[in-house]
């Protein structure tokens, strides 16, 4: 079967990847276009990159987005690890059904609903408790953490459920405290999962337009909000330049993370083989 119909499968892959990558490649190519008309080639130029780095509004928004994304990712990893640990290791506890429902629901919830509901919450909280005062970085970060912790929870939970808990039990039998077991044994094993969770939470936050638009206030426009308001007016070459930089950074980041995880996996396999050999 595997030697049959290879032509069909190769065609599917070629067309599929062309569909996925050609738009991005064209975006990058036209970022070096001299002409202001994005789709007419007017010669090679890097002037749009210069214009981009002179645009204070975009730079400020990018800095704000990076700040929010990194705080968000760190918070989401902490909350998501706790939630994933509870779901994977604690068996039944009271309110578990509601809890597991609440950790997965944000994944399928339309962004407009999440954004709207968080905004009305923040408004009500401000009326009753006087906090958060106005809306801005704090509210965007809280909103993003609520969304992205769901992703981290799923990652951590699935990693823990495929993980053999005999190591943890052995440590427990030897008298280690639960917290120590977590930090010395569980955490190092799930570290790659946490890294990918962090990266995912970071990119989702960096990318989010809808939720941020609902819960942000005056003076706290994130990068997607600035891009959206510019793009609504039509294509502009400096956005192409910005997109190219982001694609480059993401590609580098994903490749580094991929190499790190691959190394970790190879080391794990080797350790397991050695352990198996030693056991014989």
């Amino acid at each position, binding site marked *: *079967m595997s030697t049959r*119909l290879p032509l069909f499968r190769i065609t599917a892959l070629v067309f599929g990847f062309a569909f996925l990558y050609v738009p991005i490649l064209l*975006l990058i190519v036209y970022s070096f276009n001299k002409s202001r008309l994005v789709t007419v080639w007017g010669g090679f130029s890097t002037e749009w990159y210069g214009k981009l780095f002179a645009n204070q509004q975009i730079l400020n928004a990018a800095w704000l987005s990076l700040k929010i994304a990194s705080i968000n990712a760190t918070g989401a990893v902490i909350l998501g690890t706790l939630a994933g640990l509870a779901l994977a290791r604690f068996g039944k506890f009271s309110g578990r059904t509601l809890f597991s429902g609440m950790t997965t629901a944000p994944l399928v919830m*339309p962004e407009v609903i999440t954004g709207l509901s968080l905004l009305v919450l923040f408004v009500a909280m401000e009326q009753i408790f006087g906090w958060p005062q106005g809306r801005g970085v704090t509210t965007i970060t809280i909103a993003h953490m609520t969304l992205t912790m769901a992703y981290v929870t799923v990652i951590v939970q699935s990693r823990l459920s495929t993980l053999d808990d005999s190591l943890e039990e052995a440590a427990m039998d030897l008298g280690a405290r639960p917290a120590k077991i977590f930090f010395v044994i569980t955490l190092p094993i799930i570290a790659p999962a946490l890294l990918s969770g962090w990266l995912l939470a970071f*990119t989702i936050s960096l990318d989010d337009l809808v939720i941020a638009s609902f819960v942000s206030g005056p003076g706290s426009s994130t990068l*997607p909000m600035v891009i959206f308001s510019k793009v609504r007016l039509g294509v502009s070459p400096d956005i192409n330049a910005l997109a190219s930089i982001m694609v480059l950074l993401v590609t580098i980041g994903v490749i580094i993370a*991929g190499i790190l995880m691959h190394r970790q996996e190879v080391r794990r396999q080797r350790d397991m083989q050695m352990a198996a050999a030693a056991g014989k």
Partner: protein
Amino acid sequence: MIAKAQPPSGQRHSAGVQLMLRILQQFPPYRWTQARLLRWGVRGRTAVVAIPYFWLLLFFLVPFIIVLKIAFSETQIASPPYQPLLHWAGEKTLEIRLNLGNFMFLVEDSLYWKAYLNSIKVAFISTLLCLLVGYPISYAIARAKSTWRNVLLMMVILPFWTSFLLRVYAWIGLLKNNGFINNFLMWLGVIDEPIVMLQTDFAIYVGIVYSYLPFMILPLYSNLEKMDLTLLEAAADLGSRPFKSFLTITLPLSMPGVIAGSMLVFIPAVGEFVIPALLGAPDSLMIGKVLWTEFFSNRAWPVASAVAIALLLLLVIPIVLLQRAQSAEAKGAHR
């Protein structure tokens, strides 16, 4: 498992600390608090559950209750722009004003019906297209050499990591009247004048398929990859042609993957805002866009909340289908 272990108390403390702890333990408030905490089961384990639990209750469940509340209240020109539901009428009577007007408004105004039905139509067609594009790719990856699979899969996911907004933006340049596709076709001589593609439903379909393709490919791939290939060999031995084997064996067996992938595309597509806002016509009606407009342009919070509730009701069936497909997959994995 971990949490059931009792910490061996006081083993690690030095003599001085132990003496202080002894004295402290005799102190009535301490003992009272400790007994209380133990009775409630407040230990490390509880904190692990309680922190994310509290967070989600506060920032996920409570907001919904407020949205539900606002959906039943009346609009007023104030900040916040809705009237309280609970109202002290006179001295001791608490009056609840349930206002169904917002929902009646949705039913009566044909705009909302059109948006509702159009969202379902757009999401359905996009999901179908996504399946048609995604199935062959998933199939090809699942049947590729095992050394290639991870690389191919990573290539599918890689664009997903780059900005969604910018990926949608890329299609404006492609689909415009003087955009890349039209220029290319005119250069080839296939067409004489540009085809209008941007600001049509077609552009929205392309945008959704492009943005959500990984959601379709990943569950389909993990299903197809698990499949027992000896079934196909048996069918081939019995004289079945590859295409017939595909229709009678592979396709039915991959149904949980098809359903999971389709729902993962359909659910976000129904409430999508960015794609219709950037690629669709200015008057294209999608429920996510209507909610956005009601909220930001009209400042009609109660109507926007009612639209949100209606959108949620629309998603109940797809979400149930998704969960069934996922649990079917999980069962298949255990076998």
